[in-house]
């Protein structure tokens, strides 16, 4: 446990020292296009975890809304995807999205690809590799793209290594998939430029942007 703490603090130091790019240079298309409404596509699940798709799909709208965008409710867009038989986003990811703007008035479409989902019992964590891609519905430009390897940790530390191991194994087994997905989304969207409903709209161009490809440990 101590080693993990040491390593993570070192990682923070290294990240803190590296030169940062601001959001305006990282996501210029997003500042140009200023999308207001975002529709979330059902995630593309390449992992072996069956529940990952729904866990991510249902937790994606809230961080977007909190960033100041109008995210279409997951339940209503699901009705639409099912009616249009567009439940499989992998068939649509490189197609023009203009039809969504026509039919629902969406400015941007969010695709997510879950590359892997793995439980690591020994370190009591869940490892998720996920890619987020926001495309403009009219321009088909990439507005926001990040790929992350997130380790969501749910460990306990009582002093006794054996007891810790046992409780950690149980805790990992009990970690809810939805909570893991929520943590991943929250972490990734932290550096997303704020939308029209945020008081920071248009003012956060100079704030730091995260790395396009990152790997991080989040505690639960």
């Amino acid at each position: 446990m101590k080693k993990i703490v040491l390593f993570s603090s070192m990682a923070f130091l290294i990240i803190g020292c590296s030169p940062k790019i601001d959001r305006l240079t990282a996501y210029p298309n997003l500042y140009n296009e200023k999308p207001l409404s975002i529709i979330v596509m059902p995630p593309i699940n390449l992992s072996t975890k069956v529940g990952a798709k729904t866990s991510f799909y249902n937790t994606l709208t809230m961080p977007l809304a909190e960033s100041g965008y109008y995210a279409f409710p997951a339940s209503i867009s699901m009705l639409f995807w099912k009616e249009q038989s567009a439940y499989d986003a992998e068939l649509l990811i490189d197609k023009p999205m203009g039809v969504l703007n026509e039919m629902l008035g969406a400015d941007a479409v969010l695709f997510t690809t879950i590359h892997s989902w793995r439980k690591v019992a020994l370190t009591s964590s869940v490892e998720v590799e996920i890619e987020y891609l926001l495309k403009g519905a009219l321009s088909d430009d990439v507005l926001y793209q990040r790929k992350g390897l997130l380790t969501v940790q749910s460990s306990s530390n009582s002093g006794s290594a054996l007891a810790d191991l046992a409780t950690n194994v149980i805790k990992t087994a009990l970690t809810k998939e939805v909570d893991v997905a929520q943590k991943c989304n929250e972490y990734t969207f932290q550096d997303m430029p704020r939308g029209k409903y945020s008081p920071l709209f248009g003012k956060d161009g100079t704030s730091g942007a995260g790395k396009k490809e990152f790997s991080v440990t989040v505690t639960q």
Partner: protein
Amino acid sequence: LLLLVVVMLLLVLLVLLLLLVWLLVLTFEEIISKSKKKATRKRVPPGIYADYGFHLLQDGQLEKGMRMLEKEKELYPESEQMVNYLMSQFK
């Protein structure tokens, strides 16, 4: 006797389901009343009225559901097309 047990089990399931629906409705109304006072913008968050309306429509409460959807359109004009699509599904 077996039939009785099955019927009892079904009844229990039904009650649980109703309880779940009731909980869902309560939380939506809670979100609406709380966000008007406590949220940063003192407004109901995007999608809440639409989501609530959708659940009411599915539950058969057409009038109240439609009223909620109208509120969503009023508060967030960008949702108009989406809400119109949803309304067309229940007409």
